[in-house]
């Protein structure tokens, strides 16, 4: 049973990983050796093809505010996983782990996005959690 589950997960992983990551050459835009961890308030969500982007204001310790943009997957994969275009809302406070743009701009490719108020991982897994 456990082996069966592992096989199912492996198949799902292989089948799905390409779908979410397929479209662009990640390496042409982002530098995997430039990890960033940021927390901020979402001020814009672009639910668009070929990739979803969201923007948030990040306050540094000295009080200055920088607006960062984050690339995510394509809407098609997220729609199939059950997410909706308003699953992330302006005003949400989120913690993001990402890889920064090669050009040094305040843009990054988001790997994990966690909603600070609930701990829910946005746009990962199903929004409706299955029974444990």
């Amino acid at each position, binding site marked *: 049973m456990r082996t069966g589950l592992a096989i199912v997960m492996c198949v799902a992983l*292989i089948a799905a990983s390409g779908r979410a990551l397929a479209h662009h050459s990640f390496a042409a835009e982002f530098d995997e050796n430039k990890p960033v961890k940021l927390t901020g308030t979402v001020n814009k969500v672009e639910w668009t093809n070929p990739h979803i982007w969201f923007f948030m204001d990040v306050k540094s310790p000295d009080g200055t505010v920088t607006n960062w943009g984050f690339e995510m997957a394509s809407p098609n994969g997220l729609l199939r996983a059950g997410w909706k275009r308003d699953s992330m809302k302006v005003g949400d406070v989120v913690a993001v782990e990402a890889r920064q743009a090669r050009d040094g701009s305040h843009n990054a490719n988001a790997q994990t996005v966690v909603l600070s108020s609930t701990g829910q991982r946005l746009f990962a897994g199903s929004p409706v959690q299955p029974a444990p």
Partner: protein
Amino acid sequence: MKRQFTVAAAIVAALSISLSAQWPRRGQTGIPKGPDGKINLAAPAPRAADGRPDLSGIWDVSPRREKPGSAPPGQPPLAVFANLAASMVGGLPFQPWAAELSKKRVANLRYDNPDALCFPQGPLQYHLDPQPRQVYQMPGRTLIVYESNYGLRTIYTDGRPLPPPGEPQPYWHGYSIGRWEGDTFVVESSSFRGVQGGLAADGWLDQMGSPFTDALRLTERFRRVNFGNLHIDITIDDPKAYTSPFTVRVEHVVVADGWELAEFICHENQKFLEMTGRAVQK
């Protein structure tokens, strides 16, 4: 570091899809079910009104992988999206300039990949893209609509011959005619733009930037082996780019649980151009 990141990214991606349940599905008719109520992928392939196998349906690329050289005798090596030669021993039979161009395209971080630039993908890219494609088989023609970059291929089955190469003009998708040999749908294509199209995104056979030229003659043999599985053996005959023809296998599995294609208008918010310095940042 690289590997860790790749694995982590793959897991994130897998988790985001594998629990799929909320996409508004549509009920489908004619789906064979087993005693357990699940889709019976091994049921016989459906037949069209003319008695031929019906290839119509939505198809995902198969997750199957094989080790290089391990395909059974007589079966072409399996192509995968990242590299059509992944299962071949010794790689593709490149002409020297073609090998150089492939290396250059990869070294350049696939900057000019047509997929990333929202241009039509190369024929193997379309076949292997993780986004699904829908086949419409009808009298006189078979259409394939690719969700990725919203590509459309028309395969004429009304008995017309291929036009003279490059007439009336070369196409990104080539010009395709199809015929049946028993239960195998044989599609021949020519009149591709290839690298002579003149854009850096022209003539990408796969994600490795393996080139093709205006001399490409593509032969695809489609076999729906049962309800759930479609095998396509593809011969690439392009003497300008390769020293000999070669054949690879593409495998698709049916999508029959109610998912449909999603609109994918690639230029809607194409930040790739801005991020790679080819458009002004908004």
